Protein backbone atom coordinates (compact mmCIF):
# COMPACT_ATOMS: atom_id res chain seq x y z
CA UNK A 1 0.00 0.00 0.00
CA UNK A 2 2.67 2.50 1.06
CA UNK A 3 4.90 1.65 -1.88
CA UNK A 4 2.05 2.01 -4.36
CA UNK A 5 1.20 5.45 -3.00
CA UNK A 6 4.88 6.33 -3.24
CA UNK A 7 4.97 5.08 -6.84
CA UNK A 8 1.90 7.11 -7.74
CA UNK A 9 3.51 10.21 -6.25
CA UNK A 10 6.70 9.65 -8.23
CA UNK A 11 4.70 9.09 -11.42
CA UNK A 12 2.76 12.27 -10.77
CA UNK A 13 5.88 14.35 -10.09
CA UNK A 14 7.64 12.99 -13.18
CA UNK A 15 4.76 13.99 -15.42
CA UNK A 16 3.97 17.37 -13.89
CA UNK A 17 7.12 18.83 -12.34
CA UNK A 18 7.27 21.85 -14.67
CA UNK A 19 3.67 23.08 -14.19
CA UNK A 20 4.00 22.47 -10.45
CA UNK A 21 7.11 24.61 -10.30
CA UNK A 22 5.39 27.40 -12.27
CA UNK A 23 2.43 27.16 -9.92
CA UNK A 24 4.65 27.56 -6.87
CA UNK A 25 6.37 30.53 -8.56
CA UNK A 26 3.04 32.23 -9.23
CA UNK A 27 1.81 31.68 -5.69
CA UNK A 28 5.07 33.10 -4.38
CA UNK A 29 5.21 36.15 -6.65
CA UNK A 30 1.53 37.09 -6.78
CA UNK A 31 1.37 38.78 -3.34
CA UNK A 32 4.21 41.07 -4.41
CA UNK A 33 2.47 41.91 -7.70
CA UNK A 34 -0.77 42.57 -5.85
CA UNK A 35 1.10 44.80 -3.43
CA UNK A 36 2.37 46.90 -6.30
CA UNK A 37 -1.07 47.03 -7.94
CA UNK A 38 -2.33 48.45 -4.65
CA UNK A 39 0.50 50.99 -4.69
CA UNK A 40 -0.44 52.04 -8.22
CA UNK A 41 -4.06 52.33 -7.14
CA UNK A 42 -3.16 54.54 -4.17
CA UNK A 43 -0.90 56.68 -6.33
CA UNK A 44 -3.64 57.05 -8.94
CA UNK A 45 -6.21 57.93 -6.30
CA UNK A 46 -3.82 60.51 -4.87
CA UNK A 47 -3.21 61.95 -8.32
CA UNK A 48 -6.93 62.28 -9.00
CA UNK A 49 -7.41 64.02 -5.66
CA UNK A 50 -4.38 66.30 -6.15
CA UNK A 51 -2.29 64.62 -3.44
CA UNK A 52 1.05 62.82 -3.56
CA UNK A 53 0.08 59.47 -2.03
CA UNK A 54 2.62 57.25 -0.25
CA UNK A 55 6.01 59.00 -0.37
CA UNK A 56 7.90 57.97 2.76
CA UNK A 57 8.93 54.34 2.36
CA UNK A 58 11.47 54.21 -0.46
CA UNK A 59 11.64 56.78 -3.25
CA UNK A 60 8.10 57.79 -4.24
CA UNK A 61 6.78 55.12 -1.87
CA UNK A 62 8.20 52.29 -3.97
CA UNK A 63 8.80 50.09 -0.91
CA UNK A 64 5.38 50.78 0.62
CA UNK A 65 3.92 47.36 -0.37
CA UNK A 66 6.67 45.55 1.53
CA UNK A 67 6.14 47.70 4.61
CA UNK A 68 2.41 47.04 4.38
CA UNK A 69 2.97 43.30 4.09
CA UNK A 70 5.18 43.28 7.18
CA UNK A 71 2.59 45.31 9.07
CA UNK A 72 -0.23 42.93 8.11
CA UNK A 73 1.77 39.83 8.99
CA UNK A 74 2.68 41.08 12.45
CA UNK A 75 -0.78 42.35 13.37
CA UNK A 76 -2.79 40.60 16.06
CA UNK A 77 -5.06 37.90 14.70
CA UNK A 78 -8.47 38.32 16.30
CA UNK A 79 -11.18 35.68 16.13
CA UNK A 80 -14.51 36.82 17.61
CA UNK A 81 -15.78 34.84 20.60
CA UNK A 82 -19.01 33.64 19.06
CA UNK A 83 -17.58 33.04 15.62
CA UNK A 84 -17.70 29.64 14.00
CA UNK A 85 -13.96 29.03 14.39
CA UNK A 86 -13.39 26.45 11.68
CA UNK A 87 -15.40 28.23 8.99
CA UNK A 88 -13.88 31.54 10.03
CA UNK A 89 -10.46 30.01 9.51
CA UNK A 90 -11.42 28.34 6.23
CA UNK A 91 -13.22 31.19 4.47
CA UNK A 92 -10.33 33.51 3.47
CA UNK A 93 -8.23 30.52 2.38
CA UNK A 94 -11.09 29.41 0.16
CA UNK A 95 -11.30 32.83 -1.46
CA UNK A 96 -7.58 32.98 -2.23
CA UNK A 97 -7.42 29.34 -3.29
CA UNK A 98 -10.13 29.72 -5.92
CA UNK A 99 -8.57 32.87 -7.34
CA UNK A 100 -5.09 31.32 -7.54
CA UNK A 101 -6.38 28.08 -9.01
CA UNK A 102 -8.15 29.85 -11.85
CA UNK A 103 -4.88 31.60 -12.75
CA UNK A 104 -3.56 28.16 -13.73
CA UNK A 105 -5.74 28.04 -16.83
CA UNK A 106 -4.58 31.34 -18.26
CA UNK A 107 -2.05 31.65 -21.06
CA UNK A 108 0.43 34.47 -20.50
CA UNK A 109 1.94 34.47 -23.95
CA UNK A 110 2.05 31.46 -26.25
CA UNK A 111 4.82 29.80 -24.23
CA UNK A 112 3.61 30.17 -20.68
CA UNK A 113 0.53 28.34 -19.46
CA UNK A 114 0.40 26.11 -16.40
CA UNK A 115 -2.51 23.86 -17.35
CA UNK A 116 -1.46 23.35 -20.96
CA UNK A 117 -4.13 23.16 -23.66
CA UNK A 118 -7.13 22.14 -21.65
CA UNK A 119 -10.15 21.61 -23.82
CA UNK A 120 -12.48 23.62 -21.56
CA UNK A 121 -9.94 26.46 -21.05
CA UNK A 122 -12.04 29.56 -20.60
CA UNK A 123 -14.84 27.72 -18.76
CA UNK A 124 -12.29 26.42 -16.26
CA UNK A 125 -11.05 29.91 -15.48
CA UNK A 126 -14.53 31.40 -15.16
CA UNK A 127 -16.02 28.48 -13.22
CA UNK A 128 -13.23 28.08 -10.71
CA UNK A 129 -12.88 31.80 -10.03
CA UNK A 130 -16.61 31.93 -9.25
CA UNK A 131 -16.00 29.51 -6.35
CA UNK A 132 -14.31 32.35 -4.46
CA UNK A 133 -17.78 33.61 -3.57
CA UNK A 134 -18.02 30.88 -0.92
CA UNK A 135 -15.08 32.43 0.87
CA UNK A 136 -16.97 35.71 1.10
CA UNK A 137 -20.35 34.21 2.00
CA UNK A 138 -19.03 31.74 4.59
CA UNK A 139 -16.67 34.32 6.05
CA UNK A 140 -19.56 36.75 6.46
CA UNK A 141 -21.70 34.10 8.09
CA UNK A 142 -18.99 32.72 10.38
CA UNK A 143 -18.18 36.15 11.84
CA UNK A 144 -21.53 36.13 13.65
CA UNK A 145 -22.06 39.82 12.99
CA UNK A 146 -24.93 41.58 11.28
CA UNK A 147 -22.75 43.75 9.08
CA UNK A 148 -20.78 40.74 7.89
CA UNK A 149 -23.92 38.74 7.17
CA UNK A 150 -25.45 41.61 5.18
CA UNK A 151 -22.25 41.89 3.17
CA UNK A 152 -22.25 38.16 2.49
CA UNK A 153 -25.90 38.17 1.39
CA UNK A 154 -25.35 41.12 -0.90
CA UNK A 155 -22.29 39.48 -2.35
CA UNK A 156 -24.03 36.23 -3.27
CA UNK A 157 -27.08 38.03 -4.71
CA UNK A 158 -24.79 40.23 -6.75
CA UNK A 159 -22.74 37.34 -8.09
CA UNK A 160 -25.78 35.27 -9.07
CA UNK A 161 -27.28 38.29 -10.86
CA UNK A 162 -24.23 39.28 -12.84
CA UNK A 163 -22.88 35.83 -13.66
CA UNK A 164 -25.60 35.43 -16.29
CA UNK A 165 -24.73 38.65 -18.06
CA UNK A 166 -21.01 37.84 -17.99
CA UNK A 167 -21.64 34.34 -19.30
CA UNK A 168 -23.77 35.67 -22.17
CA UNK A 169 -21.05 38.16 -23.06
CA UNK A 170 -18.50 35.33 -23.16
CA UNK A 171 -20.84 33.30 -25.36
CA UNK A 172 -21.11 36.02 -27.98
CA UNK A 173 -17.32 36.23 -28.21
CA UNK A 174 -16.95 32.45 -28.28
CA UNK A 175 -19.37 32.26 -31.23
CA UNK A 176 -16.56 33.60 -33.42
CA UNK A 177 -14.10 30.85 -32.49
CA UNK A 178 -16.13 27.71 -31.89
CA UNK A 179 -13.66 26.54 -29.23
CA UNK A 180 -13.12 26.97 -25.51
CA UNK A 181 -9.36 26.38 -25.63
CA UNK A 182 -7.57 29.58 -24.66
CA UNK A 183 -4.72 29.20 -27.13
CA UNK A 184 -7.11 28.48 -30.00
CA UNK A 185 -9.17 31.56 -29.09
CA UNK A 186 -6.13 33.81 -29.40
CA UNK A 187 -4.95 32.01 -32.54
CA UNK A 188 -8.38 32.60 -34.10
CA UNK A 189 -7.99 36.34 -33.49
CA UNK A 190 -4.57 36.16 -35.10
CA UNK A 191 -5.94 34.31 -38.13
CA UNK A 192 -8.80 36.75 -38.68
CA UNK A 193 -6.38 39.66 -38.04
CA UNK A 194 -9.04 41.36 -35.93
CA UNK A 195 -9.73 41.42 -32.20
CA UNK A 196 -13.14 40.33 -31.05
CA UNK A 197 -13.68 43.64 -29.26
CA UNK A 198 -14.26 45.10 -32.74
CA UNK A 199 -16.63 42.33 -33.75
CA UNK A 200 -18.58 42.21 -30.48
CA UNK A 201 -18.25 45.64 -28.82
CA UNK A 202 -21.53 45.30 -26.93
CA UNK A 203 -20.43 41.99 -25.45
CA UNK A 204 -17.17 43.59 -24.33
CA UNK A 205 -19.09 46.39 -22.63
CA UNK A 206 -21.40 43.90 -20.92
CA UNK A 207 -18.47 41.84 -19.73
CA UNK A 208 -16.70 44.95 -18.46
CA UNK A 209 -19.66 45.98 -16.30
CA UNK A 210 -20.38 42.44 -15.12
CA UNK A 211 -16.75 41.79 -14.25
CA UNK A 212 -16.63 44.88 -12.05
CA UNK A 213 -19.71 43.60 -10.24
CA UNK A 214 -18.25 40.11 -9.89
CA UNK A 215 -15.00 41.31 -8.39
CA UNK A 216 -16.92 43.54 -5.95
CA UNK A 217 -15.12 46.66 -7.13
CA UNK A 218 -16.44 50.20 -6.91
CA UNK A 219 -18.96 51.40 -8.10
CA UNK A 220 -20.43 47.98 -7.31
CA UNK A 221 -18.58 47.31 -4.04
CA UNK A 222 -21.77 46.91 -2.04
CA UNK A 223 -20.65 43.78 -0.13
CA UNK A 224 -18.09 45.94 1.66
CA UNK A 225 -19.77 49.33 1.38
CA UNK A 226 -17.97 51.11 4.20
CA UNK A 227 -20.54 53.89 4.48
CA UNK A 228 -23.28 51.37 5.27
CA UNK A 229 -21.71 48.12 6.48
CA UNK A 230 -18.42 49.13 8.18
CA UNK A 231 -16.42 46.78 5.95
CA UNK A 232 -19.07 44.29 4.90
CA UNK A 233 -18.10 40.64 4.96
CA UNK A 234 -14.60 41.33 6.27
CA UNK A 235 -15.59 43.51 9.21
CA UNK A 236 -14.45 40.95 11.80
CA UNK A 237 -11.29 39.90 9.99
CA UNK A 238 -7.93 41.32 10.92
CA UNK A 239 -4.26 40.99 10.15
CA UNK A 240 -3.25 38.16 7.90
CA UNK A 241 -6.75 36.79 7.32
CA UNK A 242 -7.93 40.20 6.19
CA UNK A 243 -4.97 40.48 3.84
CA UNK A 244 -5.91 37.11 2.33
CA UNK A 245 -9.30 38.57 1.35
CA UNK A 246 -7.48 41.55 -0.08
CA UNK A 247 -5.18 39.27 -2.05
CA UNK A 248 -8.18 37.32 -3.36
CA UNK A 249 -9.92 40.49 -4.54
CA UNK A 250 -6.90 41.63 -6.54
CA UNK A 251 -6.17 38.14 -7.88
CA UNK A 252 -9.78 38.05 -9.07
CA UNK A 253 -9.23 41.37 -10.81
CA UNK A 254 -6.24 39.88 -12.59
CA UNK A 255 -8.34 36.88 -13.59
CA UNK A 256 -11.25 38.84 -15.07
CA UNK A 257 -8.82 41.20 -16.80
CA UNK A 258 -7.01 38.21 -18.30
CA UNK A 259 -10.25 36.64 -19.48
CA UNK A 260 -11.28 39.91 -21.13
CA UNK A 261 -7.83 40.27 -22.68
CA UNK A 262 -7.86 36.72 -24.02
CA UNK A 263 -11.36 36.85 -25.45
CA UNK A 264 -11.75 40.43 -26.59
CA UNK A 265 -8.36 42.13 -26.74
CA UNK A 266 -6.33 39.61 -28.68
CA UNK A 267 -4.52 37.93 -25.80
CA UNK A 268 -0.76 38.06 -26.30
CA UNK A 269 -0.99 39.41 -29.89
CA UNK A 270 0.74 42.65 -30.77
CA UNK A 271 -1.57 45.35 -32.17
CA UNK A 272 -1.71 44.89 -35.96
CA UNK A 273 0.17 41.60 -35.62
CA UNK A 274 -0.87 40.29 -39.03
CA UNK A 275 -0.56 43.54 -40.95
CA UNK A 276 3.05 43.15 -42.04
CA UNK A 277 1.86 40.50 -44.48
CA UNK A 278 -0.20 43.07 -46.36
CA UNK A 279 1.55 45.22 -48.99
CA UNK A 280 2.23 48.78 -47.84
CA UNK A 281 1.77 48.09 -44.15
CA UNK A 282 5.27 46.87 -43.35
CA UNK A 283 6.06 50.05 -41.44
CA UNK A 284 3.63 48.93 -38.71
CA UNK A 285 6.39 46.61 -37.53
CA UNK A 286 7.86 49.56 -35.66
CA UNK A 287 5.47 48.42 -32.91
CA UNK A 288 8.01 45.70 -32.14
CA UNK A 289 10.23 48.39 -30.67
CA UNK A 290 7.53 49.89 -28.48
CA UNK A 291 8.06 47.56 -25.46
CA UNK A 292 11.79 48.32 -25.34
CA UNK A 293 11.19 52.04 -25.86
CA UNK A 294 8.64 52.10 -23.05
CA UNK A 295 11.12 50.49 -20.65
CA UNK A 296 13.90 52.88 -21.67
CA UNK A 297 11.57 55.86 -21.20
CA UNK A 298 10.70 54.74 -17.66
CA UNK A 299 14.40 54.17 -16.95
CA UNK A 300 15.35 57.64 -18.17
CA UNK A 301 12.60 59.17 -16.03
CA UNK A 302 13.96 57.33 -12.98
CA UNK A 303 17.48 58.63 -13.76
CA UNK A 304 16.11 62.15 -14.03
CA UNK A 305 14.41 61.85 -10.64
CA UNK A 306 17.48 60.37 -8.93
CA UNK A 307 19.25 63.63 -7.91
CA UNK A 308 16.01 64.88 -6.34
CA UNK A 309 15.80 62.07 -3.79
CA UNK A 310 16.46 63.30 -0.23
CA UNK A 311 18.81 60.58 1.09
CA UNK A 312 21.68 58.63 -0.39
CA UNK A 313 19.97 55.25 0.09
CA UNK A 314 16.94 56.43 -1.85
CA UNK A 315 19.16 57.71 -4.66
CA UNK A 316 20.85 54.32 -4.93
CA UNK A 317 17.46 52.60 -4.93
CA UNK A 318 16.20 54.87 -7.71
CA UNK A 319 19.33 54.10 -9.74
CA UNK A 320 18.71 50.39 -9.24
CA UNK A 321 15.13 50.78 -10.52
CA UNK A 322 16.45 52.62 -13.57
CA UNK A 323 19.00 49.86 -14.15
CA UNK A 324 16.25 47.22 -13.92
CA UNK A 325 14.21 49.10 -16.52
CA UNK A 326 17.20 49.27 -18.90
CA UNK A 327 17.88 45.54 -18.49
CA UNK A 328 14.20 44.78 -19.21
CA UNK A 329 14.41 47.06 -22.24
CA UNK A 330 17.43 45.12 -23.50
CA UNK A 331 15.63 41.80 -22.96
CA UNK A 332 12.65 43.11 -24.93
CA UNK A 333 14.87 44.56 -27.67
CA UNK A 334 17.06 41.50 -28.17
CA UNK A 335 14.53 39.23 -29.96
CA UNK A 336 13.80 41.99 -32.50
CA UNK A 337 17.39 42.93 -33.32
CA UNK A 338 19.64 39.96 -32.57
CA UNK A 339 19.06 37.03 -34.96
CA UNK A 340 20.15 34.44 -32.35
CA UNK A 341 17.40 35.51 -29.97
CA UNK A 342 14.66 35.35 -32.63
CA UNK A 343 13.12 32.08 -31.29
CA UNK A 344 12.31 33.81 -28.01
CA UNK A 345 10.40 36.60 -29.76
CA UNK A 346 6.96 34.99 -29.40
CA UNK A 347 7.42 34.12 -25.73
CA UNK A 348 8.92 37.40 -24.52
CA UNK A 349 6.87 39.85 -26.55
CA UNK A 350 3.72 37.76 -26.13
CA UNK A 351 4.15 37.97 -22.39
CA UNK A 352 4.77 41.72 -22.56
CA UNK A 353 1.67 42.50 -24.60
CA UNK A 354 -0.53 40.24 -22.49
CA UNK A 355 0.60 41.81 -19.23
CA UNK A 356 0.36 45.27 -20.81
CA UNK A 357 -3.28 44.76 -21.82
CA UNK A 358 -4.18 43.22 -18.46
CA UNK A 359 -2.62 46.25 -16.75
CA UNK A 360 -4.62 48.64 -18.91
CA UNK A 361 -7.83 46.82 -18.04
CA UNK A 362 -7.06 46.98 -14.32
CA UNK A 363 -6.07 50.65 -14.71
CA UNK A 364 -9.49 51.27 -16.20
CA UNK A 365 -11.09 49.58 -13.17
CA UNK A 366 -9.22 52.03 -10.94
CA UNK A 367 -10.36 55.01 -12.99
CA UNK A 368 -13.96 53.92 -12.61
CA UNK A 369 -13.49 53.48 -8.88
CA UNK A 370 -12.40 57.09 -8.43
CA UNK A 371 -14.87 58.52 -10.93
CA UNK A 372 -18.29 56.97 -10.32
CA UNK A 373 -20.04 57.04 -6.93
CA UNK A 374 -21.32 53.81 -5.43
CA UNK A 375 -24.65 52.41 -6.61
CA UNK A 376 -27.52 51.72 -4.25
CA UNK A 377 -28.37 48.04 -3.92
CA UNK A 378 -31.73 48.24 -5.69
CA UNK A 379 -30.10 50.24 -8.49
CA UNK A 380 -27.48 47.53 -8.82
CA UNK A 381 -30.09 44.80 -9.07
CA UNK A 382 -32.16 46.79 -11.54
CA UNK A 383 -29.12 47.41 -13.71
CA UNK A 384 -28.30 43.70 -13.71
CA UNK A 385 -31.73 42.17 -14.25
CA UNK A 386 -33.58 44.84 -16.20
CA UNK A 387 -30.79 46.09 -18.41
CA UNK A 388 -27.65 43.95 -18.70
CA UNK A 389 -29.26 40.51 -18.96
CA UNK A 390 -31.84 41.43 -21.66
CA UNK A 391 -29.16 43.36 -23.51
CA UNK A 392 -26.70 40.47 -23.47
CA UNK A 393 -29.35 37.97 -24.60
CA UNK A 394 -30.33 40.21 -27.52
CA UNK A 395 -26.65 40.62 -28.31
CA UNK A 396 -26.00 36.87 -28.46
CA UNK A 397 -28.97 36.49 -30.78
CA UNK A 398 -27.87 39.29 -33.12
CA UNK A 399 -24.22 38.22 -33.18
CA UNK A 400 -25.39 34.74 -34.14
CA UNK A 401 -27.52 36.13 -36.96
CA UNK A 402 -24.61 38.29 -38.13
CA UNK A 403 -22.27 35.30 -38.15
CA UNK A 404 -24.69 33.24 -40.24
CA UNK A 405 -25.06 36.14 -42.67
CA UNK A 406 -21.27 36.42 -42.75
CA UNK A 407 -20.83 32.76 -43.58
CA UNK A 408 -23.40 33.03 -46.40
CA UNK A 409 -21.57 36.02 -47.86
CA UNK A 410 -18.22 34.27 -47.24
CA UNK A 411 -16.72 37.11 -45.21
CA UNK A 412 -13.43 36.86 -43.30
CA UNK A 413 -11.41 39.07 -40.98
CA UNK A 414 -12.14 42.77 -41.35
CA UNK A 415 -14.97 42.09 -43.80
CA UNK A 416 -16.93 40.59 -40.90
CA UNK A 417 -17.38 44.15 -39.63
CA UNK A 418 -19.90 44.61 -42.47
CA UNK A 419 -22.34 42.31 -40.69
CA UNK A 420 -21.35 42.69 -37.03
CA UNK A 421 -21.53 46.50 -36.97
CA UNK A 422 -25.22 46.58 -37.97
CA UNK A 423 -25.84 43.91 -35.32
CA UNK A 424 -24.13 46.07 -32.69
CA UNK A 425 -26.12 49.14 -33.79
CA UNK A 426 -29.41 47.25 -33.54
CA UNK A 427 -28.37 46.04 -30.06
CA UNK A 428 -27.71 49.65 -29.06
CA UNK A 429 -31.17 50.69 -30.29
CA UNK A 430 -32.66 47.85 -28.22
CA UNK A 431 -30.66 49.10 -25.25
CA UNK A 432 -32.14 52.57 -25.57
CA UNK A 433 -35.63 51.08 -25.90
CA UNK A 434 -35.07 49.07 -22.70
CA UNK A 435 -33.89 52.20 -20.91
CA UNK A 436 -36.90 54.21 -22.09
CA UNK A 437 -39.31 51.48 -20.99
CA UNK A 438 -37.56 51.27 -17.65
CA UNK A 439 -37.85 55.02 -17.12
CA UNK A 440 -41.57 55.03 -17.93
CA UNK A 441 -42.16 52.06 -15.66
CA UNK A 442 -40.37 53.74 -12.79
CA UNK A 443 -42.24 57.00 -13.30
CA UNK A 444 -45.51 55.10 -13.08
CA UNK A 445 -44.35 53.27 -9.95
CA UNK A 446 -43.31 56.52 -8.27
CA UNK A 447 -46.68 58.04 -9.13
CA UNK A 448 -48.48 55.03 -7.66
CA UNK A 449 -46.37 55.19 -4.53
CA UNK A 450 -47.06 58.91 -4.17
CA UNK A 451 -50.81 58.47 -4.60
CA UNK A 452 -50.74 55.62 -2.05
CA UNK A 453 -48.92 57.91 0.32
CA UNK A 454 -51.44 60.72 -0.02
CA UNK A 455 -54.41 58.34 0.07
CA UNK A 456 -53.13 56.65 3.22
Amino acid sequence: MMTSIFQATIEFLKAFWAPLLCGVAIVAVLPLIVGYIVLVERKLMADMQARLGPMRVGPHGLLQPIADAVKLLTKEDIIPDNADKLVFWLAPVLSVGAALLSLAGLAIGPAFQIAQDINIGILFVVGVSALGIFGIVLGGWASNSHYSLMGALRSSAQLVSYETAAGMALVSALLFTGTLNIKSIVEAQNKEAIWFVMLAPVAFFTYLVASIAETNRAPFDLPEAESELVAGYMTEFSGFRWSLYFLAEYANMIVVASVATTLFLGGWLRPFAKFHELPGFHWLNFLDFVPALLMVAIGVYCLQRTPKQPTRVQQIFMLAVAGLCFVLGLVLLAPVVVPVAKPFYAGIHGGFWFIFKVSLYIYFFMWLRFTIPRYRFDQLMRLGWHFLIPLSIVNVLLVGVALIAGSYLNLHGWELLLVTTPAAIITLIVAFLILAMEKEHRARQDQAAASDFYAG
Partner: protein
Amino acid sequence: MLDKALFYFFAGIAVVSAVLMVTRRNVVHSAIFLITALLATAGIFLQLRAEFLFIVQIILYVGGIMVLFVFVIMLVNLDVALQQIQFARQKWVALIVAVALAGQVGVMFWTSGKMPGQGLPVLTAAAAAKLPPNSETVARSLFESYLLPFEIASVLLLVAMIGAVVMAKKRA
Protein backbone atom coordinates in the same frame (compact mmCIF):
# COMPACT_ATOMS: atom_id res chain seq x y z
CA MET B 1 -1.81 3.62 -10.89
CA LEU B 2 -2.12 7.39 -10.72
CA ASP B 3 -5.66 7.14 -12.04
CA LYS B 4 -6.60 4.63 -9.37
CA ALA B 5 -5.05 6.70 -6.60
CA LEU B 6 -6.92 9.81 -7.78
CA PHE B 7 -10.18 7.89 -8.03
CA TYR B 8 -9.97 6.55 -4.50
CA PHE B 9 -8.89 9.95 -3.21
CA PHE B 10 -11.90 11.76 -4.68
CA ALA B 11 -14.33 8.91 -3.99
CA GLY B 12 -13.24 8.81 -0.36
CA ILE B 13 -13.72 12.54 0.05
CA ALA B 14 -17.13 12.33 -1.63
CA VAL B 15 -18.40 9.51 0.59
CA VAL B 16 -17.05 10.95 3.83
CA SER B 17 -18.40 14.42 3.17
CA ALA B 18 -21.76 13.03 2.05
CA VAL B 19 -22.08 11.21 5.38
CA LEU B 20 -21.00 14.32 7.28
CA MET B 21 -23.50 16.39 5.30
CA VAL B 22 -26.36 14.25 6.57
CA THR B 23 -25.18 14.02 10.17
CA ARG B 24 -24.22 17.65 10.90
CA ARG B 25 -26.70 19.57 13.02
CA ASN B 26 -25.67 22.98 11.73
CA VAL B 27 -27.26 23.67 8.35
CA VAL B 28 -24.37 25.78 7.07
CA HIS B 29 -21.91 22.99 7.92
CA SER B 30 -24.15 20.59 6.01
CA ALA B 31 -24.05 22.94 3.03
CA ILE B 32 -20.25 23.10 3.18
CA PHE B 33 -19.99 19.31 3.17
CA LEU B 34 -22.46 19.10 0.30
CA ILE B 35 -20.20 21.48 -1.63
CA THR B 36 -17.22 19.28 -0.81
CA ALA B 37 -19.07 16.17 -1.99
CA LEU B 38 -20.04 17.89 -5.26
CA LEU B 39 -16.48 19.06 -5.83
CA ALA B 40 -15.12 15.57 -5.19
CA THR B 41 -17.59 14.18 -7.72
CA ALA B 42 -16.35 16.77 -10.17
CA GLY B 43 -12.85 15.49 -9.45
CA ILE B 44 -13.94 11.96 -10.40
CA PHE B 45 -15.36 13.28 -13.67
CA LEU B 46 -12.01 14.91 -14.37
CA GLN B 47 -10.15 11.71 -13.55
CA LEU B 48 -12.35 9.98 -16.16
CA ARG B 49 -11.29 12.65 -18.72
CA ALA B 50 -14.81 14.06 -18.85
CA GLU B 51 -13.63 17.66 -18.57
CA PHE B 52 -16.85 19.20 -19.75
CA LEU B 53 -18.90 17.37 -17.13
CA PHE B 54 -16.32 18.40 -14.54
CA ILE B 55 -16.66 22.11 -15.25
CA VAL B 56 -20.44 21.96 -15.70
CA GLN B 57 -20.70 20.28 -12.31
CA ILE B 58 -18.63 23.07 -10.78
CA ILE B 59 -20.34 25.99 -12.54
CA LEU B 60 -23.93 24.76 -12.20
CA TYR B 61 -24.05 22.82 -8.96
CA VAL B 62 -21.33 24.41 -6.88
CA GLY B 63 -21.18 27.92 -8.34
CA GLY B 64 -24.90 28.31 -9.05
CA ILE B 65 -27.20 26.09 -7.06
CA MET B 66 -25.12 25.91 -3.88
CA VAL B 67 -24.70 29.69 -3.80
CA LEU B 68 -28.49 29.98 -3.87
CA PHE B 69 -28.78 27.27 -1.17
CA VAL B 70 -26.41 29.13 1.12
CA PHE B 71 -28.20 32.38 0.35
CA VAL B 72 -31.54 30.93 1.39
CA ILE B 73 -30.07 29.24 4.49
CA MET B 74 -28.77 32.59 5.67
CA LEU B 75 -32.10 34.29 5.06
CA VAL B 76 -34.10 31.86 7.20
CA ASN B 77 -33.97 32.02 10.96
CA LEU B 78 -31.56 29.27 11.98
CA ASP B 79 -32.18 29.49 15.73
CA VAL B 80 -35.82 28.50 15.30
CA ALA B 81 -35.00 25.69 12.91
CA LEU B 82 -32.37 24.22 15.24
CA GLN B 83 -34.88 23.74 18.06
CA GLN B 84 -37.23 21.65 15.96
CA ILE B 85 -36.81 17.90 15.60
CA GLN B 86 -34.84 17.43 12.43
CA PHE B 87 -34.23 13.72 12.17
CA ALA B 88 -35.95 10.41 12.71
CA ARG B 89 -39.36 11.33 11.41
CA GLN B 90 -39.82 8.47 8.97
CA LYS B 91 -37.54 5.73 10.20
CA TRP B 92 -39.26 2.86 8.43
CA VAL B 93 -39.56 4.51 5.03
CA ALA B 94 -35.91 5.49 5.22
CA LEU B 95 -34.89 1.96 6.15
CA ILE B 96 -36.82 0.44 3.23
CA VAL B 97 -35.39 2.93 0.76
CA ALA B 98 -31.87 2.34 2.05
CA VAL B 99 -32.20 -1.45 1.78
CA ALA B 100 -33.61 -1.14 -1.74
CA LEU B 101 -30.75 1.11 -2.78
CA ALA B 102 -28.16 -1.19 -1.26
CA GLY B 103 -29.73 -4.12 -3.10
CA GLN B 104 -29.59 -2.22 -6.38
CA VAL B 105 -25.93 -1.37 -5.92
CA GLY B 106 -25.21 -4.96 -4.93
CA VAL B 107 -26.87 -6.28 -8.09
CA MET B 108 -24.83 -3.85 -10.14
CA PHE B 109 -21.60 -5.07 -8.55
CA TRP B 110 -22.67 -8.68 -9.00
CA THR B 111 -23.57 -8.43 -12.68
CA SER B 112 -20.64 -6.23 -13.63
CA GLY B 113 -18.31 -8.69 -11.94
CA LYS B 114 -19.67 -11.41 -14.22
CA MET B 115 -19.21 -9.49 -17.46
CA PRO B 116 -16.34 -10.84 -19.55
CA GLY B 117 -13.21 -8.73 -19.43
CA GLN B 118 -14.35 -6.56 -16.55
CA GLY B 119 -13.47 -6.90 -12.93
CA LEU B 120 -15.02 -4.81 -10.22
CA PRO B 121 -16.41 -1.60 -11.62
CA VAL B 122 -13.46 0.62 -10.83
CA LEU B 123 -13.82 3.09 -13.61
CA THR B 124 -10.75 3.16 -15.80
CA ALA B 125 -10.21 6.18 -17.97
CA ALA B 126 -9.40 6.08 -21.65
CA ALA B 127 -6.05 7.48 -22.71
CA ALA B 128 -6.34 11.22 -23.31
CA ALA B 129 -5.00 10.96 -26.85
CA LYS B 130 -7.74 8.55 -27.91
CA LEU B 131 -10.63 10.75 -26.90
CA PRO B 132 -12.25 13.26 -29.22
CA PRO B 133 -12.44 16.82 -27.84
CA ASN B 134 -14.84 16.72 -24.94
CA SER B 135 -17.06 19.77 -25.27
CA GLU B 136 -17.40 19.26 -29.05
CA THR B 137 -18.63 15.70 -28.47
CA VAL B 138 -21.20 16.86 -25.93
CA ALA B 139 -22.36 19.62 -28.26
CA ARG B 140 -22.70 17.23 -31.19
CA SER B 141 -24.75 14.71 -29.26
CA LEU B 142 -26.97 17.48 -27.85
CA PHE B 143 -27.60 19.37 -31.06
CA GLU B 144 -27.49 16.54 -33.61
CA SER B 145 -28.66 13.28 -32.06
CA TYR B 146 -30.89 14.64 -29.31
CA LEU B 147 -32.05 17.98 -30.68
CA LEU B 148 -35.76 17.45 -30.03
CA PRO B 149 -35.46 16.33 -26.39
CA PHE B 150 -33.04 19.19 -25.82
CA GLU B 151 -35.49 21.74 -27.21
CA ILE B 152 -38.39 20.28 -25.26
CA ALA B 153 -36.35 20.44 -22.06
CA SER B 154 -35.41 24.06 -22.67
CA VAL B 155 -39.01 25.06 -23.41
CA LEU B 156 -40.04 23.30 -20.19
CA LEU B 157 -37.44 25.24 -18.24
CA LEU B 158 -38.57 28.50 -19.86
CA VAL B 159 -42.18 27.79 -18.91
CA ALA B 160 -41.12 27.03 -15.34
CA MET B 161 -39.11 30.25 -15.17
CA ILE B 162 -41.94 32.42 -16.49
CA GLY B 163 -44.33 30.67 -14.11
CA ALA B 164 -42.04 31.45 -11.20
CA VAL B 165 -41.84 35.11 -12.21
CA VAL B 166 -45.62 35.35 -12.54
CA MET B 167 -46.17 33.74 -9.16
CA ALA B 168 -43.54 35.89 -7.47
CA LYS B 169 -45.10 39.11 -8.72
CA LYS B 170 -47.26 40.71 -6.06
CA ARG B 171 -49.48 42.93 -8.17
CA ALA B 172 -50.35 42.42 -11.81
